[in-house]
C-alpha cells in the first residue's frame, strides 16, 4: 500500500507544479495584457494620477498634450479637427479613439520596465510620467489635405514609399476634439455627414477604375510578355450583361488602355485571368486580410471566387460590382508599384520618448513581401505615367516631375460617382504615394487628381 501512496503523492503534487508553472506563464505572457486592460479599474485610476504623454508629429510638433488649467488637467489638441481621426481623443466618458486608444498604455507609461529608479520615484510620490509618441505624420501635408477636402466628404492618405510611413491620414468632414463634450450628441446624430467616421481607414468604397492597377498586374504576372492589341467598340458583352465603356477606344495596347481607363480592355483581362486567379491576386494585395496597423482598418472586400460568375468578374475587374476597399488600402496598392512590387505594411509611429527626449524605443518600419515581379511593376508604372501625361489624370501633371497615377470614377448607388486618384512621384524614384477619395466627387480626373497634384507638389518641395 505504501507504494501506492508514493505514486499518489506524485499524482497529487503534479497539479500544484502545473499551477505554479501556469502562474509563471500568466505573469510572463499575459501580465501586461492584464495590467493595462481598459477594463482594469487600476488603469482607470492610474490615468488620473499620470501625466499622460504627448503625441508629436515627425518634426516634434505637438498634436496632443495634457495641460493644467486651474488645477484641472485637460487634453488639448492644438490642431483641432485636422488630426482628429488619426490622433483620436480621450473623452471623459472614458471613450478613447485613434492613437490615444491604441497606444494608451505607452501614453500612460504603463510599459515602463520595473527598475530601482522608477520604484524610488514611486516612493517619493512623484507623479508618474507617461511616454511621448513620435509619429510619422507631417503636419504641413495633413493641414493641406484638410484644406483641400474642405467641406466635402472624403479621405486623403499620403505615404513615404520604401518604408510606407504614413505622412498624412485625413478624413473629412472632421470635428474639433477640443469641443467634444459640447458637441457629442450632435456629432453622433449626424447620419448624413458622419464626422466621427475615419473614412481613410474605415470607409469602404467601390474602388472603380483604380483597381485596374491590380487587374493589370494580375494579368501581367500571368503573361509577362503581354503584347496583345485590344479592340474596344465602346462596350463588352459578357454573357447576359453589357458592360459599357466611357468611349469607343478602337485598337489600343495595354499602356494606352490604362491611360484612358478602357473598361473593355480590363474586363477582358479580368475574364482571361479567371475568377480563381483574380481572387487570388486580390488576396495577394491584401483584400480580406486584417492589416497590422496602429489604427483599426476595415478589411477590403471581394466575393469568393465561386461567387464571381463572368458578369460579376468583369465588373470586379474594373473595380465595380461588390468589391469594396478603404482609401488606406488603395494607397497601399499604389505603394506596391512605387516599391518595385513590394507590399510593406504602413506604420504611424517612429519612436517612443520620455519627456526629456530620451528615446525609449525605436520602431522600425516593417519588412514587406514581394507581391508582384519587378517586370510587372515596371510596365504598370509606365502605364500609370501615361495616365497623367496623356490620359485621364492630366490634372495631376506637375512641371518637371514625372507623376504616375490612376484615376477612378466609382459608380455607386447613392448618387454621383466617387472620385478616386492614386499615384506616386517621381515615377522612377518615388518620394510620395497618395490616395485621394472624394465621395460623390464625380469624375476622378477632376476633383481627386487636382488634390493629388497639390499634395505631391508640397511633399516634393522638401
Amino acid at each position, binding site marked *: 500500500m505504501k507504494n501506492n501512496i508514493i505514486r499518489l503523492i506524485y499524482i497529487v503534487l503534479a497539479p500544484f507544479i502545473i499551477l505554479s508553472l501556469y502562474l509563471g506563464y500568466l505573469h510572463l505572457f499575459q501580465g501586461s495584457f492584464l495590467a493595462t486592460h481598459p477594463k482594469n479599474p*487600476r488603469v482607470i485610476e492610474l490615468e488620473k494620477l499620470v501625466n499622460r504623454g504627448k503625441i508629436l508629429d515627425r518634426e516634434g510638433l505637438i498634436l496632443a498634450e495634457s495641460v493644467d488649467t486651474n488645477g484641472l488637467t485637460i487634453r488639448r489638441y492644438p490642431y483641432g479637427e485636422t488630426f482628429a481621426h488619426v490622433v483620436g481623443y480621450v473623452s471623459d466618458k472614458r471613450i478613447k479613439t485613434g492613437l490615444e486608444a491604441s497606444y494608451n498604455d505607452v501614453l500612460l507609461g504603463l510599459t515602463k520596465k520595473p527598475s530601482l529608479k522608477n520604484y524610488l520615484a514611486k516612493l517619493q510620490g512623484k507623479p508618474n510620467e507617461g511616454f511621448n509618441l513620435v509619429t510619422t505624420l507631417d503636419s504641413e501635408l495633413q493641414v493641406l489635405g484638410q484644406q483641400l477636402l474642405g467641406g466635402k466628404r472624403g479621405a486623403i492618405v499620403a505615404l513615404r514609399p520604401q518604408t510606407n510611413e504614413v505622412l498624412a491620414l485625413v478624413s473629412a468632414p472632421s470635428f474639433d476634439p477640443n469641443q467634444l463634450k459640447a458637441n457629442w450628441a450632435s456629432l453622433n446624430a449626424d447620419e448624413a455627414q458622419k464626422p466621427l467616421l475615419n473614412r481613410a481607414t474605415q470607409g469602404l468604397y467601390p474602388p472603380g477604375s483604380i483597381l485596374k492597377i491590380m487587374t493589370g498586374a494580375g494579368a501581367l504576372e500571368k503573361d509577362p510578355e503581354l503584347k496583345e492589341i485590344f479592340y474596344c467598340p465602346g462596350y463588352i458583352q459578357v454573357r447576359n450583361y453589357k458592360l459599357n465603356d466611357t468611349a469607343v477606344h478602337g485598337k489600343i495596347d495595354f499602356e494606352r488602355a490604362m491611360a484612358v481607363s478602357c473598361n473593355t480592355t480590363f474586363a477582358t483581362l479580368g475574364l482571361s485571368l479567371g475568377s480563381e486567379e483574380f481572387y487570388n491576386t486580390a488576396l495577394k494585395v491584401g483584400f480580406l486580410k486584417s492589416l497590422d496597423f496602429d489604427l483599426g482598418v476595415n478589411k477590403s472586400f471581394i466575393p469568393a471566387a465561386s461567387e464571381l460568375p463572368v458578369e460579376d468578374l468583369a465588373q470586379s475587374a474594373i473595380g465595380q460590382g461588390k468589391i469594396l476597399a478603404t482609401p488606406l488600402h488603395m494607397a497601399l496598392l499604389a505603394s506596391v508599384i512605387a516599391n518595385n512590387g513590394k507590399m510593406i505594411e504602413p506604420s504611424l509611429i517612429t519612436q517612443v520618448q520620455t519627456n526629456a527626449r530620451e528615446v525609449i524605443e525605436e520602431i522600425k518600419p516593417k519588412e514587406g513581401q514581394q507581391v508582384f515581379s519587378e517586370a510587372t511593376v515596371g510596365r504598370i508604372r509606365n502605364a500609370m505615367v501615361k495616365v497623367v501625361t496623356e490620359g485621364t489624370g492630366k490634372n495631376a501633371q506637375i512641371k518637371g516631375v514625372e507623376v504616375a497615377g490612376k484615376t477612378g470614377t466609382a459608380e455607386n448607388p447613392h448618387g454621383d460617382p466617387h472620385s478616386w486618384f492614386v499615384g506616386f512621384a517621381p515615377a522612377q524614384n518615388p518620394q510620395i504615394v497618395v490616395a485621394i477619395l472624394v465621395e460623390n466627387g464625380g469624375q476622378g480626373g477632376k476633383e481627386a487628381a487636382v488634390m493629388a497634384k497639390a499634395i505631391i507638389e508640397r511633399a516634393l518641395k522638401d
Partner: protein
Amino acid sequence: MGSLRRKERQLIFYVSLLLMVGLGILKYLFPDLEVKMLSQGLIIMAVFLGLHMFLNILKYKCDLYLLPMMAALSGIGLVFLYRLEPAYAERQFWWIIVGAVSFIIAILTTKDYRKLGQFKYIYILVGLLALIVTVVFGTRVGGSTNWITIGQFRFQPAEVVKLFLVLFLASYLVDKKELLAKPKLEHLGPLLVMWGMSVLFLVSQKDLGTALLFFGTFLAMLYAATGKLTYITIGSLMFSGGAAVAYFLFGHVKVRFDIWLNPWADIDGKGYQIAQSLFAIGSGGIFGSGLGFGKSSIIPAVHTDFIFATVLEELGFIGGIGVISLYLLLIYRGFKIALRAKNDFGVMLATGLTCLLAIQTFIILGGVTKLIPLTGITLPFMSYGGSSLLANFILIGLLCSISHREEEEYEK
C-alpha cells in the same frame, strides 16, 4: 520546556514575527483600523504558542511542522482579512480560537485514534444525515444552498462531513482492501452507494466544489488502498461524463464553464469575478504591488474564495509561490505521516486527510486563477469561514494524533 519540540517553537516565533509585521504595516497604511487588531494578533500568536505548550505537556511526538504551518497560513489569512474586511477578520479571530479548542479536543479524544476505525457505518450515516438536513433546512448563500442558519450563525455542515467521509472510507477500505483488488461489484457496491449519494446531494445543493472534493478524495483513497489505476481511469471518465451532463442540464454549470473558457466575452456580467481576479493577478507582477496597495476589494467574495487573488496582487508572483509552498509543505508532512505509519488504518486515514487538504487547496487555487473552472470552496486556513477553519483544525489535529501514535510505535 522540552527540547523535544524546540523547532516547533522557533517556527511559531517566526510566524508571529510575520503576523505582527503584517498587522503593523496595515495599521500604518490604514490608520482607521482599530488598535485592537494588533492585540488580537498577539492573542492569536499566544494561542498557537499555547497549542505548542499543550503538545509539550502531553509529551506529544507528533510532526513538528504541522502546527507552525497551520499558524502561518491562518496568520497570513488573518492579515489579509484585516486588510480586506476587518469585520470578518474579527470573526475569523474568534473562529481561530474555536479551532484551537477543537484541535485540543481532537487530540484529547483520540488518544488511540485506531479506535476510530470501528465506527465506519456510523460515519457514513451521520454524514448523509447532515447532508439531508441541509437539503431540508438549508438556506441559500451565494450560489449554493449548503448552509444551515441558526440565528446569526451560519454553518456549513459539508465542511465537517468531509472528515466523516474520510473516516468512513479509511475504515472501510482498510477492512476490505484485499477484496477490492478485484473490482467486484458486491464489494464496490456499498462504497459506490455511499459515495454516490453524498455527491448527488452536493450537486443538488449546487455545491460543486465540495462534490468535486469528495469525488477526488474518494478516488485517491481507493487508489491508495488497491493500487489499481483502473479505478482512477473509470472514475475520471465518470466524472467527465457527469460534468458533460451537468453542462447541458444545469444552466449555472454551463455559465461556470463558459466563463472559464472566455471570461472576456462578458467582462461586466458573468465573467466579472474571474476577469477582476485576473486583473488583480496581472497587476501585481512578480513582486506584487505591496501589502495594502492593491485594489482587489472589488472582486466579489474576495474575503472567502478569492483571497488568493489579493495575495497574488499585493505579494506578487513570489508571494503566491510562497503561499503555495506552505500548502505543499503541509501536504508533504501529511504524506510523510502516512508513509511512516505502521498501522494500516493510520496510513489510510492520514492519506485521506492529506488528500482532502491537497485537493481542496488545488480546486480553489486553480479556480481563482482560471486554471480550472471556478467552484465555490474555501482556501483552507486563509479564507474567511468558521466551519472551514473548524474542520481544518480538526483535520490537522487528527493528523497530529496519528503522527504521535505512530512515532510511539518506533520507540517500542
